[in-house]
């Protein structure tokens, strides 16, 4: 691969704000707190940040959130952008930050995002944000929330491969079990497959407990060049590969409802890293809905097409299984403040690869994947992360 960034950039600091229900804090304030915590984690001064990449916030949005955040913290970066590829923004921002560092546009990039979907918005604002993310002429008039686009893919998967609602529910049950061991998780009481099946139907085949939470919260990552990384930490986590794919905008132009652009996104990242799915020890997979995770397990290469339901039932996405996934609890149980949600997947995989997860630790975790996606599988971004031994 031409001029690959494999092993050239590392995550040296991670930090977050309180998550869950955090009233009275603006998205910028939460994001600034997460940044200060990431700086402390990296033993770094804020003056050393010369690049800032963020997503935007719904609760109080800025056209240039990354620039507003810089002013809030009184830093003046020489590289900045506010990215928008929906749920894939986290992965896209990390990949882009790594590329910018590798190319010399910046030395040290803050990748941060925060929002207060739960307490920072009136119900009207929240609803507006939800309905207005689909096309105003061809989708919105029919009352199609974004949840509905994901629901239709899951429904078709059930039809085509015999996937069941119980198998989807098992994803929620597994991640709740993970969250029960994670300090700060929003939902920690254990649930059963029956609990999921008996929760209210939202948009078929998804029940309430098949859907991600609504939360407040922010998270920040600090990336720098591999040469500098050891100045800040003994356990830099290296970017080994990145890939993205953008297959369509409208759900009715998705080429195949049951196979997504995650196939291409992941393949590119695997090729760059020089690995395959079976080499991975731990995963963070964007879990806006339970069925989303099933389809990603197939498309990322952890199991064959159509077999994700039994893969999850067999315990393959938890400790002792093939690929322990979302060990923090994910968006289904840890937190889902909107666009920032997938930042927590990055933080968790970094902590797993550092070996600092305590009772949540996956044994001998050296290679990890974070896969983020959005907008009815329109946007896909994969990042492969590795401990020092894998570089």
């Amino acid at each position, binding site marked *: 691969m031409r001029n690959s960034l494999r092993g050239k950039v590392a995550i040296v600091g991670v930090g977050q704000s309180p998550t869950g229900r955090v009233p009275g804090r603006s998205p910028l304030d939460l994001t600034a707190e997460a940044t200060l915590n990431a700086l402390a984690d990296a033993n770094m001064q804020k003056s050393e940040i010369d690049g800032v990449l963020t997503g935007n916030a719904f609760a109080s949005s800025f056209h240039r959130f990354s620039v507003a955040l810089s002013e809030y913290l009184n830093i003046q970066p020489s590289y900045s952008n506010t990215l928008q590829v929906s749920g894939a923004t986290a992965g896209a921002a990390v990949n882009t930050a790594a590329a910018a560092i590798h190319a010399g546009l910046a030395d040290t990039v803050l990748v941060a995002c925060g929002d207060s979907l739960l307490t920072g918005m009136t119900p009207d604002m929240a609803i507006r944000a939800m309905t207005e993310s689909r096309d105003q*002429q061809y989708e919105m008039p029919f*009352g199609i929330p974004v949840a509905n686009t994901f629901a239709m893919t899951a429904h078709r998967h059930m039809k085509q491969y015999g996937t069941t609602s119980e198998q989807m529910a098992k994803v929620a049950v597994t991640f709740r079990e993970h969250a029960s061991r994670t300090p700060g998780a929003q939902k920690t009481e254990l649930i059963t497959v029956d609990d999921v099946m008996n929760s209210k139907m939202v948009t078929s085949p998804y029940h309430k407990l098949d859907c991600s939470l609504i939360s407040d919260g922010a998270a920040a990552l600090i990336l720098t060049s591999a040469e500098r990384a050891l100045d800040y930490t003994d356990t830099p986590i290296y970017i080994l590969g990145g890939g993205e794919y953008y297959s369509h905008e409208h759900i*009715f132009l998705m080429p195949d409802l049951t196979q997504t652009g995650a196939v291409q996104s992941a393949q590119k990242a695997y090729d760059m890293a020089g690995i395959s799915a079976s080499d991975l020890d731990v995963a963070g997979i964007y879990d806006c809905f339970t069925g989303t995770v099933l389809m990603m397990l197939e498309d990322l290469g952890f199991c064959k097409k159509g077999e994700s339901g039994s893969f999850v039932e067999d315990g393959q996405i938890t400790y002792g299984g093939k690929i322990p996934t979302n060990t923090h609890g994910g968006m289904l149980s840890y937190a889902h403040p909107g666009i920032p949600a997938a930042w927590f997947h990055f933080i968790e995989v970094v902590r797993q690869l550092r070996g600092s997860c305590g009772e949540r630790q996956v044994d001998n975790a050296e290679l990890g994947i974070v896969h983020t996606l959005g907008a009815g599988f329109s946007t896909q971004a994969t990042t492969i992360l590795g401990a020092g031994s894998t570089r």
Partner: protein
Amino acid sequence: MSEAIKNVLTKPLPTPDGDSQALWDGLKNGKLLLQHCDDCGHVQYYQQGMCRLCQSTKLRHQAASGKGTIYSYSVVYRAPGPAFKDDVPYAVLLVQLEEGPRMISSLVGKNFDALDFDVAVRLTTAAISDEISLPYFELVD
């Protein structure tokens, strides 16, 4: 009432643009116009200034037969906003049109028990304002 709150309480009303004016004009007359490319034969929905496959501008508008099948669907029980509260439950459909393209629409009526993959549906239209009629689908008995 503030503009923002009014927007939340009323259903989204499509605003035709240069690409889509013909489609909305057609729907007002009960016709769903698809674009047929004279250069490569591609049939497309939605309307664009050029063919999505070959970028030719030789596009002909031709009314769809109105025949299709259900490629996927989801019955919405929790309304996406106050404007849809009186409508729930309703079924959003991903319709496979006979001519090739797929489109998003919703089901006329609430006969959800009869909903299934690949069953036949046919087009109908209904005015939601003076300027805009929406394409809906009903089950074929």
